[in-house]
């Protein structure tokens, strides 16, 4: 499986993501610039955290207009796995690949901690190697992680099983304790916590690694010929 880590001006978790894929997951990975014109050679797309374009206007608001995002939308529509972490999640929201929007943390302070997440749904590209209701430890680091959507959108998220991760102790005020959601098809995941920073016990937790392993497993299963 060949992954692309998209690098915007101001991305700062791209190297962490690259390390997680290459050294911990052991798959092929390349960093791809924001002005890239073609992602057709990649099987999975990773939008890392950071402060793309300085978070001017709103986080992710400018990055969504960058050249490469047209290709990310194309990949998502083709059913390829697309993962947005932190600022990557914010970009997915601004680009309309995921519903809702991100507000400033309720307490207005930057939140930097390791948090407990509950795995709410395992029927998607990203969490099939976890068990439902499993509790995992993943770090967060964000100032705008207060997820919001209106009641109708929230009802749809619940009904379709699109809520994948919730916080056990909500660190930012997000609606329904949401930490991560997928699109309806389950191939686009946005999450505020950083699984790429939890891929080895040395880092304090290896709970994030199974997310990447799930992508690989599901990709292989959907690409087996004559299965």
């Amino acid at each position: 499986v060949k992954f692309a880590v998209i690098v915007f001006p101001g991305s700062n978790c791209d190297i962490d993501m690259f390390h997680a894929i290459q050294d911990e997951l052991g798959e092929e990975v390349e960093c791809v610039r924001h002005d890239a014109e073609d992602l057709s050679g990649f099987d999975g797309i990773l939008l890392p955290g950071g402060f793309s374009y300085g978070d001017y206007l709103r986080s992710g608001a400018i990055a969504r207009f960058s050249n490469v995002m047209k290709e990310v939308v194309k990949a998502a529509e083709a059913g390829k796995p697309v993962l947005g972490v932190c600022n990557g999640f914010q970009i997915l929201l601004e680009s309309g690949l995921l519903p809702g929007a991100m507000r400033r943390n309720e307490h207005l302070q930057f939140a930097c901690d390791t948090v407990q997440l509950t795995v709410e749904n395992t029927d998607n590209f990203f969490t099939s190697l976890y068990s439902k209701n499993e509790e995992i430890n993943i770090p967060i680091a964000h100032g705008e992680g207060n997820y919001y959507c209106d009641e109708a959108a929230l009802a749809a998220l619940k009904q379709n099983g699109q809520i994948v991760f919730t916080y056990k102790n909500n660190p930012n005020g997000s609606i329904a304790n949401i930490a991560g959601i997928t699109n309806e098809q389950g191939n686009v995941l946005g999450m505020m916590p950083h699984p790429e920073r939890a891929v080895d016990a040395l880092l304090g937790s290896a709970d994030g690694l199974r997310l990447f392993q799930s992508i690989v497993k599901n990709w292989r299963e959907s690409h087996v010929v004559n299965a």
Partner: protein
Amino acid sequence: MELSIEASERKIDELINEMCQRLLSNPVIEDYRYEIEESVPK
């Protein structure tokens, strides 16, 4: 926010609404209103 927009073939309200909805505001969490003033080139 104050912006100058050059005259074009498209209707000014249409342009402004598109700008507001796609970039300047996020309609999921924000409302917007605008006023148009004609400016005289110096």
